[in-house]
């Protein structure tokens, strides 16, 4: 078995708000193995991005957020590092690709210098060396005439190009883990496919772990080996891709899968919608957090909070946070 590059144990992230501390992540545990591509899905507002930014401790701990639990990266707990040590981890060992490259790239510097900046910080490269290496990275991510593009500003590039630049920045220091936070959401479909192909190719080529955060189940199905489903700051189901798509155990996962539009089947049937919306953090329901929206919920679900447990009779490592699934009753 490959060793775990990232192991998150009981991660809790609380935000400081005017109404006091708000728990945005509540005891999240999962892992990413070396060279593995793990997907993380969920609706907007369920804590996917909070999770990715908590792993890198991007929220300011003085003013914004407080973390608890453990984030073991290569066995070292990132939450115990000081800011200086954390800076060495960010951008070198763990890097990140954001959703909207136009707003994530600094508008007043040429893209070449933004790649070179990371190389200067982490690899100690000087002017010309850093520029050459940066150009090499642009070539690696498939940007035509990289020499010219080095001097381009973000607003002069197309959406796909910008996303490639961001990937180049993320990969230039050969990280062991890449967190891709909805890397293709802002792109059109053909470019989406190209960017995902690029990420998968680099994942194999560089044997780099990837945590892919998305709400697009199709992307997960095509690229990932393992998936975790998040709901309201918790992981509600985790399994390898095939199991999750064939035998989802949690009603929320079922709902997500049923909401995918299909080309085959009865066209007159209306698209399935999970009723209601993700509640606010200040209004987290008692008991099972999904119960108010769950078609299978019974009285017990509203009282007792389920734990993330192996699904009885299921595949190995298939976990779900549902009373019904745990009882072996199933929810179908």
């Amino acid at each position, binding site marked *: 078995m490959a060793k775990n590059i990232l192991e998150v144990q009981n991660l809790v992230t609380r935000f400081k708000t005017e109404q006091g501390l708000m728990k945005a992540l509540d005891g999240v545990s999962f892992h990413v193995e070396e060279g593995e591509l793990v997907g993380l899905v969920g609706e907007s507002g369920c804590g996917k991005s909070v999770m990715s*930014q908590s792993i*890198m401790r*991007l929220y300011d701990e003085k*003013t914004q957020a407080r973390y608890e639990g453990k984030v073991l990266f290569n066995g070292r707990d990132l939450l115990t590092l000081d*800011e200086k040590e954390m*800076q*060495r*981890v*960010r*951008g*070198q060992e763990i*890097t*990140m690709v*954001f959703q*909207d490259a136009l*707003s*994530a*790239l*600094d*508008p*007043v*510097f040429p893209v070449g210098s933004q790649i070179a*900046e*990371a190389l200067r*910080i*982490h690899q100690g490269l000087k002017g010309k060396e850093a520029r050459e290496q940066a150009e090499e990275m642009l070539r690696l991510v498939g940007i035509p005439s990289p020499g010219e593009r080095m001097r381009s*500003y973000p*607003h*002069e590039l197309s959406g796909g190009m910008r996303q490639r630049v*961001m990937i180049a*920045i993320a990969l230039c220091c050969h990280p062991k883990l890449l967190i891709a936070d909805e890397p293709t959401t802002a792109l059109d479909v053909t470019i989406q496919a190209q960017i995902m192909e690029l990420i998968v190719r680099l994942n194999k080529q560089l044997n780099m772990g990837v945590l892919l955060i998305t709400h697009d189940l199709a992307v997960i199905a095509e690229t990932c080996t393992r998936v975790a489903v998040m709901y309201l700051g918790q992981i509600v189901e985790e399994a390898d891709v095939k199991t999750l798509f064939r035998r989802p155990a949690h009603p929320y996962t079922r709902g997500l899968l049923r909401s995918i539009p299909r080309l085959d089947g009865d066209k007159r049937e209306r698209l399935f919608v999970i009723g209601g919306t993700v509640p606010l953090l200040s209004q987290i329901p008692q008991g099972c957090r999904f119960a108010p929206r769950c078609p299978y919920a019974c009285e017990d679900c509203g009282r007792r909070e389920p734990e993330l447990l192996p699904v009885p009779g299921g595949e190995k490592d298939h976990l779900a946070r549902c009373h019904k699934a745990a009882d072996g009753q199933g929810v179908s």
Partner: protein
Amino acid sequence: MKKYVLKRTLTLIPVLFVVSVAIFMLVHIAPGDPAAALLGDRASQAEIDALRERMGLNDPLPVQYVNWVGGVLRGDLGESVFMQGSMTQILAEHMGPTLALTGWAVLLATLFAVPLGILAAKNQGRLADHLVSVTSMVGISMPSFLLGLLLVLLFAVQLQWLPAWGYVSIREGGFLAHLRSLILPAIALGFIESGLMIRMTRSAMLEVLQSDYIRMCKAKGVSPSGIFLKHALRNSLISILTVVGQSFMVLLSGATVVETVFNIPGIGQLTVNSVLRRDYEVIQAVVLLVSVMNVLICLVLDLLYGLIDPRARAGGEGV
């Protein structure tokens, strides 16, 4: 960038045309005959006619305009009837002190306000932020003449470190005497302007600090000081420059009160005196001068924007 500079400079032509027409009409819109107004109630009709002839008021308006603009372009603004001298020279004499005062005031204000604004943004919601906020409120609320008088009371009357009034040019008394004569009025003016600058710098920095690219910088491993001084400052510079430029414009035409308090023979004083004696010609010349300077400051700001922000440049190149 060359294209951008050219385009920005060319846009000045229509602006200056409109400004010149408006200023030219100033004298003609004013009620009554300018010549009669200049000479006062007791002048005879013959004297008025003679002055009308000398001022060219008998020509049709377009001809008068062309003559006037022609003169302006040659640097000839005519003669002042009241002040007995070439208008160009009168203006030059008064512009020097005003420019020096404004320059010092804006410089002091910027050096004071921008670091404080950054400090406040960096410590948002904490003690330093509140202290800076109070400082800027005092700056915005206090009238400049009051601060000027208080400064005079302390530094000139009590401590006797600095002169209470007057202006010494660098040519007359050297740099030190020049600075000594202007430091109090420059502080009085600059502190008032710095209030606004602090607020603008703070809010511009805060806005930039919440942006995605700052988060990306952090994710890239850039140190907090690198994020602040390289990325955040450069991106907030446009807002900061704008407010500095605006201060310059406001002070150029609005230093009158402080000039009066400190008895500095600048444009403000000249304007007030000219208005009191209804000297339309001088008023016209002053308004023209100040307008042209404002237009030029705008041009400089635009060019600086282009230098700082590639997106501003792109707009000028029609990409």
